[in-house]
């Protein structure tokens, strides 16, 4: 079962928070909705769950129009940031809630609760109350509760945001394992964290200002972003203004060799270079500038180099002899590591 948004628009008091979204999530696919807060990503998820009513457009689940169905008749699992476990019910009662509400036979409920708790590694905590569990454990129970009803669509709204960094990476691994174990379940995963999206998603939909900006596989969006917002939001990027020439571009009086297909000679454009492909020292596509900031990050050094009034970031393997603040350095990057973004792409 997949999800399909057919130009879904949501407005509160005339304020458009989701602007004609068209998006299809294939059966069994993990789609991440990635964007900053206020980008409309959570609204899109709530439109699928049935908690907001689109002003126009339709929402389909498995090719069935569910726009007018109340939430309890949509048959979807949902996990939210604050877990929302029922505090007055034990863990096993929480997980059984959906099955009891659907009047499933008693024997079946017991089996499915055990199965869901087993799958999330929470079987040992069945008799506890939510308040007796840590944040990570509570989120596992919330996932077990959503999975117990065997939904074909699982909605995850910032499920890891309330956890600390170490727990988060552990839960990310768990979610990836769940997805492998439940290949038929489509997941819509709302997050503002690009690492979560890149790790987990089959495809990423990048949202900003109530609109879908770009949609593609993590690799596509990372390697060849379509616009500046996507480039900087997914993975971080150096974006420098350039003038297109024949077989290259010019920036700060320097000729740089990059592919220029599809962009007219003489046009203004933006060159996107990921910080980790920038090297220090002599090489092709060289840029000379002054070190403004240097950060040691354990395995890497990050340099902020000012080139002709623009800051260029470079992530370098830990340097034995790092340059000092104010030093003149030269940076370089390989021609096929850069992407040229035509002016006017996206909103930049």
């Amino acid at each position, binding site marked *: 079962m997949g999800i399909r948004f057919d130009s879904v628009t949501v407005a509160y008091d005339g304020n458009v928070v989701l602007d004609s979204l068209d998006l299809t999530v294939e059966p069994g696919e993990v789609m991440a909705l990635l964007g900053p807060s206020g980008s409309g990503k959570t609204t899109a998820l709530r439109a699928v769950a049935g908690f907001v009513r689109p002003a126009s457009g339709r929402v389909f689940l498995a090719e069935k129009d569910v726009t007018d169905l109340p939430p309890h008749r949509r048959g979807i699992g949902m996990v939210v940031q604050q877990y929302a476990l029922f505090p007055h019910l034990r863990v096993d009662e929480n997980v059984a809630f959906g099955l009891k509400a659907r009047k499933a036979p008693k024997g079946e409920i017991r089996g499915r609760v055990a199965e869901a708790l087993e799958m999330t590694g929470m079987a040992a905590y069945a008799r506890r*109350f939510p308040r007796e569990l840590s944040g990570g454990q509570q989120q596992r129970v919330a996932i077990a509760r959503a999975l117990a009803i065997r939904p074909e669509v699982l909605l995850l709204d910032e499920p890891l945001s309330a956890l600390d960094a170490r727990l988060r990476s552990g839960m990310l691994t768990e979610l990836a394992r769940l997805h492998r174990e439940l290949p038929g379940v489509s997941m819509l995963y709302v997050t503002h964290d690009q690492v979560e999206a890149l790790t987990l998603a089959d495809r990423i939909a990048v949202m900003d200002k109530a609109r879908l900006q770009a949609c593609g596989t993590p690799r596509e969006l990372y390697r060849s972003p379509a616009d500046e917002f996507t480039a900087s939001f997914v993975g971080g990027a150096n974006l420098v203004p350039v003038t297109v020439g024949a077989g290259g571009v010019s920036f700060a009086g320097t000729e740089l060799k990059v592919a220029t297909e599809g962009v007219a000679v003489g046009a203004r454009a933006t060159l996107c270079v990921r910080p980790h492909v920038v090297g220090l020292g002599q090489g092709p596509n060289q840029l000379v500038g002054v070190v403004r900031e240097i950060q040691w990050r354990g395995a890497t050094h990050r340099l902020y180099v000012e080139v002709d009034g623009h800051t260029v970031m470079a992530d370098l393997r830990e340097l034995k002899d790092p340059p000092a603040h104010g030093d003149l350095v030269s940076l370089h990057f390989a021609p096929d590591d850069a992407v040229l973004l035509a002016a006017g792409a996206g909103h930049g």
Partner: protein
Amino acid sequence: MLVHSRRAKWAVWAVFLVLFLPLFALPLLVVLGASFATHWSGVLPSGLTTGHYRAATRGEALQALTTSLVTAVTASLLALATGTWAALAGAALKKRHRRLLDALFVLPVAVPSVVVGLSVLVAFSKPPMLLNGTRWIVILAHTVLVTAFAHQSVSAAITRLDPAYEQAAASLGARPAYVLWRVRLPLLLPSLTAAAGLCFALSMGELSATMMLYPPDWTPLPVLIYAATDRGALFAGSAIAVVLMAATLLVLFAVSRVRTRASYR
């Protein structure tokens, strides 16, 4: 506490006691002292006796205590049911309509209770709604008076209730009625018991509306206390007042025990 130094703490305690003792504790202690006295002409009561209590716990006074308890329990339960129902319904309304509903429910508190008593008396003295002369007119008046408090505290609790719980329940396939019984009401339970306690205490002490309405066979305790002091039997009246106080506190204590077991967060 906001003050940290030892001396400042003592000073705050001293101010508290100077203000609290004369205003709140002393009058109650005086009633307690008077309830054991036969005379009080000096500094302390004299002619100590437990005779007033013997009178206050049997016969007419015992009957009045039962009347008060039955009235207060019935009125609080009725008020809790209507108040909660209205608060739940109000939560689903648009803001402007909800304000109107809130205002309607506050009315019996805003209006002096003598007026409420009089209007209930006038309204229910003629067929087909002839309640005058029965215990039901007293219970009805008490219900009208305390529903405001039940409605107010329950609607405050509903606005504090995180909608994430009902939404989680709905996404799991629970119908609205199921969500109400299995999620919302259990989560509201601590506020419901608190509201019930408040209604009970108010009803136990209600006098002004009751005075205009009570039939001879349904005399609540406050009326008896008023009658006793009115005819000059201050010490006998004090003993009944202490009984009223003790009974109310006892029930409130029991209700608060329910609350601590039902609060999950």
